[in-house]
């Protein structure tokens, strides 16, 4: 076994052992432990746990790669996935914490005095969470197969088992404390390579400053200016101004991601674990600090990786890399099929240009930018080993949070709340654990046999959260008079129009050929891409709900009193079931 593989095994299995130890120490004994970690998590702990919960395999592995190739257009992810926390801290989290229940559908059911509203919320939650989990499971399988050369299915199985142990045993309590450990692993794994690369390229160890510095090669040219020059010379769009389908599309996309973030139930749930309203407000702040640590480094990683890649292939203008002399990482990634070279002009050299006819780098997968980055920059083996453990930590922590959101909505909202209200606490806990086990098996199966629509599902998850859950919660808090009927009508029309738009452009359930308007950009409503449509769905939701409320009358007096009550912090106890 070579040195790199040995280090990788140590990093990955060492981190797993840590998660198991924490799970054993933090076993759940009651439904309160299982759903809200007993309500005793401090704001800083909760902030870290939210960070790990939120930052998924996509944030860790894919985002910097997306930014590397989208340039300025990639800003939608940076602003969208952080700006949502401002909305959470001011518009949702403190009031929902004050109300003091276990789940998001439970809040909706109390506020809108309606079982229908609760069931609609459960359905949205399960669709959004399941689609999200598939991506995490794929991330686990990929990390295992690339770094440890284990079979994809076996890697997935190991990942499922690890999550099963600490999520089923520990519930929210176990998940919270393992997420804190996972945050530390993933942030360490993300920033260490970035610091090395920033030092190499600019001499500045802080990547956020390095991105705005001059290059260390003595030329005195700013890194971003150099990158702009290199990519435009080869016919690509200028890195710092490429605006991804226009300003309106970027605007709608950013807004959709922001309100989608604020409406994702597995994130909102984490605010029920803190002891007070005050702590709910400040844990949103700490969460964003911990998230910003990664999100402000990501654009530096993206830009620097792109520059390193370009410089490797074409060290100076007109002088191309000879294919036979390609570095080891190039060969490694060629084997995975994520990097492909085709010598079109037969000169044995690599030409990487924007024009598809003469471009010889026929495939450069975005995901390899983070994974291959340490190798491209010739970093020591222990740094590369860290990246594997970090990617797994990101995927597992998010998967666990999502699993808890699903299992609590089934055992607490559907079973205890609607179907079998006389379920005892002990049996509810058992039901929660069984549902979680089933969800792990289902998501593992879907990760192993990803349905054809897996690629489009993230858009659907955010679209659903943005167009249904966020507006329903916000109106429930800020409009006392909003009635149950109106909220259900709003949620259904918001989801309806978003799904219709996504499906008509991407195919019904993403099956190719069933898209009745085609994926053509000309048919997009004002040029808004399907991924960015959640914001429009939310507007429709607000509009319909207020119109229906005007026509059918306002919420009854005791509900208005309930709203008055959760608007002030006084009298908040720990989260409870009834």
């Amino acid at each position, binding site marked *: 076994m070579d040195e790199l593989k040995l280090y990788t095994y140590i990093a990955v299995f060492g981190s797993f052992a840590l998660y198991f130890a924490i799970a054993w120490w933090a076993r759940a004994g009651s439904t309160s432990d299982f759903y809200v970690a007993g309500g005793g998590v401090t704001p800083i702990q909760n902030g870290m746990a939210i960070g790990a919960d939120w930052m998924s395999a996509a944030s860790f592995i894919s985002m910097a790669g997306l930014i590397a190739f989208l340039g300025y257009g990639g800003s939608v992810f940076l602003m969208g996935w952080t*700006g949502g926390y401002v909305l959470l801290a001011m518009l949702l989290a403190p009031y929902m914490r004050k109300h003091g229940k276990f789940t998001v559908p439970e809040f909706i059911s109390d506020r809108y005095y309606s079982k229908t509203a609760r069931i609609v919320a459960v359905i949205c939650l399960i669709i959004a969470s399941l689609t999200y989990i598939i991506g995490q499971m794929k991330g686990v399988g990929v990390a295992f197969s690339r770094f440890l050369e284990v079979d994809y299915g076996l890697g997935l199985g190991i990942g499922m088992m690890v999550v099963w142990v600490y999520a089923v045993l520990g519930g929210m309590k176990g998940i919270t404390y393992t997420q804190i450990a996972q945050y530390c692993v993933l942030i360490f794994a993300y920033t260490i390579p970035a610091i090395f690369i920033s030092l190499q390229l600019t001499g500045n160890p802080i990547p956020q400053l390095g991105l705005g510095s001059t290059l260390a090669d003595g030329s005195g040219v700013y890194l971003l200016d150099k990158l702009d020059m290199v990519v435009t010379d080869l016919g690509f769009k200028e890195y710092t101004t490429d605006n991804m389908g226009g300003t309106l599309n970027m605007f709608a996309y950013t807004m959709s991601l922001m309100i989608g973030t604020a409406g994702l139930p597995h994130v909102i749930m984490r605010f029920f674990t803190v002891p007070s309203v005050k702590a709910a407000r400040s844990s949103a702040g700490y969460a964003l600090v911990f998230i910003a640590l990664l999100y402000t480094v990501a654009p530096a990683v993206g830009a620097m990786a792109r520059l390193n890649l370009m410089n490797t292939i074409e060290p100076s203008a007109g002088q191309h890399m000879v294919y036979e002399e390609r570095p080891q990482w190039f060969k490694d990634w060629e084997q995975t099929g994520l990097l492909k070279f085709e010598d079109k002009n037969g000169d044995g050299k690599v030409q990487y240009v924007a024009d598809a006819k003469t471009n010889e780098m026929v495939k450069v997968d975005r995901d390899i930018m983070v994974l291959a980055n340490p190798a491209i920059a010739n970093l020591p083996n222990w740094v590369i080993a860290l990246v594997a453990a970090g990617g797994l930590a990101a995927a597992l922590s998010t998967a666990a949070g999502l699993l808890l959101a699903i299992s609590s909505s089934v055992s607490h909202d559907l079973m205890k709340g609607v179907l079998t209200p006389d379920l005892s606490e002990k049996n509810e806990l058992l039901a929660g654990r069984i549902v979680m086990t089933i969800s792990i098996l289902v998501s593992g199966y879907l990760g192993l046999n990803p349905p054809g629509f897996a690629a489009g599902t993230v858009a659907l998850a955010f679209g659903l959260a943005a167009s249904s859950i966020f507006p329903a919660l916000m109106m429930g808090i800020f409009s006392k008079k909003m009635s149950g009927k109106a909220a259900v009508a709003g949620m259904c029309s918001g989801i309806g129009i978003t799904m219709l738009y996504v499906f008509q452009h991407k195919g019904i359930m993403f099956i190719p050929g069933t898209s009745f308007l085609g994926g053509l950009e000309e048919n997009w409503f004002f040029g808004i891409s399907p991924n960015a449509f959640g914001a429009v769905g939310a507007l429709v939701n607000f509009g319909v709900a207020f119109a229906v409320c005007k026509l059918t009358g306002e919420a009854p007096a005791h509900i208005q009193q309930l709203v008055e009550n959760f608007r002030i912090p006084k009298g908040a106890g720990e989260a409870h079931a009834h």
Partner: protein
Amino acid sequence: MESENSYWAENLRLILICLVIWFVVSFGFGLLLVEPLNEIRLGGYKLGFWFAQQGSIYVFVGLIFWYTAQMNKLDKKYKVEEE
């Protein structure tokens, strides 16, 4: 009841201030005004690009902590803080 209404009104005013700033730094500086701002440089960064990929995030963090501090004061002023 009277004091609870003015507590809520003051809270709404704070939220409005925060959301205006939230909108201006991200959608304003980072998207709508990005081209004119890009004429200004911040070291190697074009200013509009910096707001879109760095600055807006720092402002978001600051906003949440400022709002939290203001709300804690407000809770005390109206005596609605938790026991």
